[in-house]
């Protein structure tokens, strides 16, 4: 849901009304740069050993790889409102959500490289990332995140804790029965749950107009009387505002909300995807809406940053990623015998 660029007067009004400060937006900008740099660096390392012949098992990073370049604003716009004790349940495309939740980039990278210093000591991998300290988890099974986040929300409500759970999922997952079931349960039990649908237009290779009876997801939530937002997922400010309301509502005990963020992934569903299902021109059109320069331009128009500031934030983020990747690359692999322990506690 692309929304036109506001005039400077309207932009000023919007950020003021939302309570957005220069500090918040500069932090958001840096966070998005961090995710962008992380994903692009992972892509770079992923192809080591995989060219010219693409072999998923070769190179320092094995297996499938689903990157979220282009979807940074959704993760950051939501994540900035969350505390460590809030829970996030993510998907097979989880890095941006993890970083936005505060999962340390070095342990995240190390897990993706299968190293013993990784979040899960190398047992999870890129689609199965867990960080108990930041209450972050994810699942490679489409549609699995909704009820799990609802379960964490149930525990928070049951214990009278002021915490919120967020389920991320794609528009493809929105077709899964778990969404309807979870919406029903979340209303029934007034759960502090925020469901965020990242509509990036494609479920793997299937365009949404081939798989969805309705062009939008928020209607599904309205059917359960769940407050729903349709936001421009390529616009940090739009996501941030909706997420603020939704998360504050949940934290205050007013139950679930639903955010549909229309966005776009610039890379394939997975690395190695030949992308027969879309044109280069389409990708280029969405590049015009790249959330990072878009926020950067607004910061400049507001007079909250100049090019040098943006460049410094970008460089800081890139340096943090470089350190994380170096940590991952230099870390040892797990002892093979570790594979045989840890099924039970």
């Amino acid at each position, binding site marked *: 849901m692309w929304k036109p660029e506001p005039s400077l007067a309207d932009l000023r009004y919007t950020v003021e009304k939302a309570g957005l400060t220069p500090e918040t937006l500069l932090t958001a900008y840096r966070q998005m740069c961090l995710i962008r740099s992380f994903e692009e660096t992972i892509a770079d390392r992923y192809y080591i050993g995989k060219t010219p012949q693409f072999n998923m098992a070769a190179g320092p990073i094995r297996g499938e790889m689903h990157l979220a370049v282009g979807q940074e604003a959704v993760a950051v716009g939501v994540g900035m409102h969350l505390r460590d004790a809030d829970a996030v349940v993510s998907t097979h495309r989880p890095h941006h959500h993890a970083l936005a939740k505060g999962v340390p980039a070095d342990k995240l990278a190390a897990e993706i490289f299968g190293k013993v210093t990784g979040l899960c000591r190398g047992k999870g991998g890129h689609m199965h990332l867990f960080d108990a300290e930041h209450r972050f988890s994810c699942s490679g099974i489409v549609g699995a995140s909704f009820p799990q986040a609802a*379960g964490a929300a149930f*525990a928070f409500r049951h214990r009278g804790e002021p915490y919120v759970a967020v389920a991320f999922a794609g528009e493809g997952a929105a077709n899964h029965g778990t969404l309807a079931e*979870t919406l029903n349960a979340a209303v029934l039990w007034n759960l502090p749950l925020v469901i965020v649908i990242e509509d990036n237009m494609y479920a793997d290779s299937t365009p949404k107009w081939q798989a969805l009876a309705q062009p939008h997801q928020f209607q599904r939530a309205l059917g359960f009387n769940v407050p729903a937002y349709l936001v421009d997922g390529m616009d940090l400010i739009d996501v941030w505002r909706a997420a603020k309301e939704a998360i504050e509502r949940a934290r205050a005990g007013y139950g679930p909300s639903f955010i549909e963020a229309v966005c776009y992934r610039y890379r394939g569903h997975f690395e190695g995807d030949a992308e027969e299902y879309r044109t280069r021109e389409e990708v280029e059109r969405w590049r015009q809406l790249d959330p990072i320069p878009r926020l950067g331009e607004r910061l400049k128009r507001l007079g909250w940053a100049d090019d040098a500031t943006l460049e410094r934030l970008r460089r800081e983020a890139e340096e943090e990623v470089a350190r994380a990747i170096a940590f991952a690359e230099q870390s040892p692999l797990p002892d093979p015998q570790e594979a045989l322990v840890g099924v039970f506690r």
Partner: protein
Amino acid sequence: MTRTMKGIAFAIAEAIDQEMAERSDIVVLGEDVTYWGAVFGFTMGLHQKYGRDRVIDTPITEQTFFGMACGAASVGMHPVVSLMFVDFLGAGFDQMYNHIAKNHYMSGGQFAMPVTILTAIGGGYGDAAQHSQVLYGLFAHVPGFKVVVPATAYDAKGLTISALRDPNPVVIFGHKLLTGLPFLPFEGQEEEVPEERYTVEFGKAAIRREGSDLTMIAAGLMVHRCLRAADELARDGISAEVIDLRTLVPLDTETLVASARKTGRVLIVDEDYRSYGMTGEVSFHVQAGALDALKTPIRRLAVPDVPIPFSEPLERTVIPSVEQIVAEAKALLAAGARA
């Protein structure tokens, strides 16, 4: 103090009650867990005592309430979840086998998954192919579930308390014909059960009857049918040992092997499907530890790889009966000793 108890249903409910009274982390979720006590009685009386905040009737959405159990466990709750009939696992198995069973391992040990699953198993009362299965072999096959099959009320209470104190996913398979509920046949025994709390350790099989001519290995309802078969065999001068596995995971191979070495003849009896299941697994362990002591090849009796049919004579044909067990035992003894 003990009192006489008929069946496993009240024993399981009492175990949950006694743990819930002392712990705030336990909540009970599932279909019909309030008025109907999860239909097969495993949660009876809890709702009256703990109210709807802790004993919660869910919508008929297995994948969602098992997913919620996973999420709640990941932030420190201990959900007790009812899967009314084990046959319904297909409606929610993804959350069980891909998440509840794996998250501890996949997270490198960060996330405990203390989830206790209660489910009713078995046939013999005319409920046919989608409401009479056992299916514990499916759970036992996937790493990450402890698989508990109580045959007695004493065990049901003690094993349930162990499950509620276990930081891992535990599935308790309660046989419908052992519940002791008035609307079902009862094939168990009335027995003395302590009023106070106690635990029964996982991974310890029970020798329910000592014998010297053959060993019969079973779980749940089949333990009782083996005991009745042993009574009949005794009338023919045959001394059968009967072993109750109690838990399939962990499996007490030591007791099985010791008994096999003692009697030299082993019959495994199972109400689950025959192929790729409990009988094959148990016989592997028996031969691995006792091959040199076996006088004849191991025999097994299980549901012969057909769905459970409805009509009484059909159902009786596929679920191992006392008569079939006796016949198998005699066939085992008739088989010539190995040279």
